[in-house]
């Protein structure tokens, strides 16, 4: 009986894939460490799924996300239409990982070394996803910090060379030091949307743009 049910559900899944307009687009959430990528991913999932499960834990400690995590079939409704995407929350990209930085957050040495190893694997994984497995990118920046870093310049260049659609989000506008204009000046070739993923500020515009860019 179980076998028959499984078979029926497999056929039904295959048929729906065959006849659906399009496969959900895999949208990678990229950016430097501590930009608020996981906070944003969790906000999107909570806003658009029934169970509101989170994608991963949020933390002020860098490299909290050390594995790329995918949340499938998120249906975002905009202007009577539904856009279905898979959200891929990725580890923050960097060119260096020093385990001693974790020690500053009251983490023991063994744990710090383990975290740094996982972080390096996570960054490599994120780069691999970017080259092979995403259909579009949401690039998240902390608007209270300088966006003119080499990692940002390189990653935007890599995304552009892959000809992937990219939406730049200026996160953390709830912070006093936030400057959205600084991000607009750094990447004038792309549209920049301000938001606070933590507070949920300006999410309507973010969803409008997700539908426009990736729908």
């Amino acid at each position: 009986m179980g076998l028959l049910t499984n078979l029926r559900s497999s056929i039904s899944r295959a048929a729906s894939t065959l006849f659906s307009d399009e496969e959900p687009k895999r949208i990678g959430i990229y950016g430097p460490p501590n930009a608020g990528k996981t906070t944003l991913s969790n906000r999107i999932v909570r806003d658009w799924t029934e169970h509101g499960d989170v994608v991963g834990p949020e933390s002020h400690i860098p490299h909290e996300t050390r594995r790329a995590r995918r949340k499938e079939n998120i249906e975002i409704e905009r202007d009577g239409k539904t856009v279905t995407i898979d959200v891929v929350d990725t580890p923050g990209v960097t060119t260096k990982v020093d385990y001693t930085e974790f020690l500053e957050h009251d983490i023991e040495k063994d744990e710090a070394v383990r975290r740094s190893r996982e972080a390096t694997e996570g960054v490599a994984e994120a780069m691999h996803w970017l080259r092979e497995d995403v259909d579009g990118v949401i690039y998240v920046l902390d608007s209270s910090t300088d966006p003119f870093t080499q990692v940002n310049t390189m990653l935007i260049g890599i995304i552009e060379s892959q000809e992937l659609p990219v939406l730049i989000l200026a996160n953390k506008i709830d912070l006093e030091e936030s400057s959205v204009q600084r991000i607009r000046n750094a990447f004038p070739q792309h549209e920049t949307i301000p938001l606070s993923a933590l507070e949920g500020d300006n999410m309507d515009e973010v969803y409008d743009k997700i539908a426009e860019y990736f729908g």
Partner: protein
Amino acid sequence: MAEVKQRDGVQIDLISGERMDGLASMEKIRVILDGVREGNIVILEEGLSPDEESKLIEVTMSEISPDEFNGIEIETYPQSGGSDSGLFNRLMGKNSPKKLTVIGPANRIETLHKDETLIQTLVSRT
């Protein structure tokens, strides 16, 4: 590359575009990381393509080891212009505009200032 006797100082490898042109992507990455892991500052006359930069990050991550190698610091001039120049370059068959690139060990090189025309870095000996 020629063997250099270790002295009290910082070795700088200035690598011409011509030298890198003849190498495959992974060979270029090896030349850079071998130099950086010996503690040298590597300066590329013509930089890397975005795809090579992506692979450089990936390979660097795989080689990071606690108390031994923390990764790299890399600097290029920020790309000026916007999508128009990108499109123009693509139409002209230039996917990677040539850009001077400085790469060094993360624990020995610190960027002091960077803009479209100037990169200032502080290199420490140890």
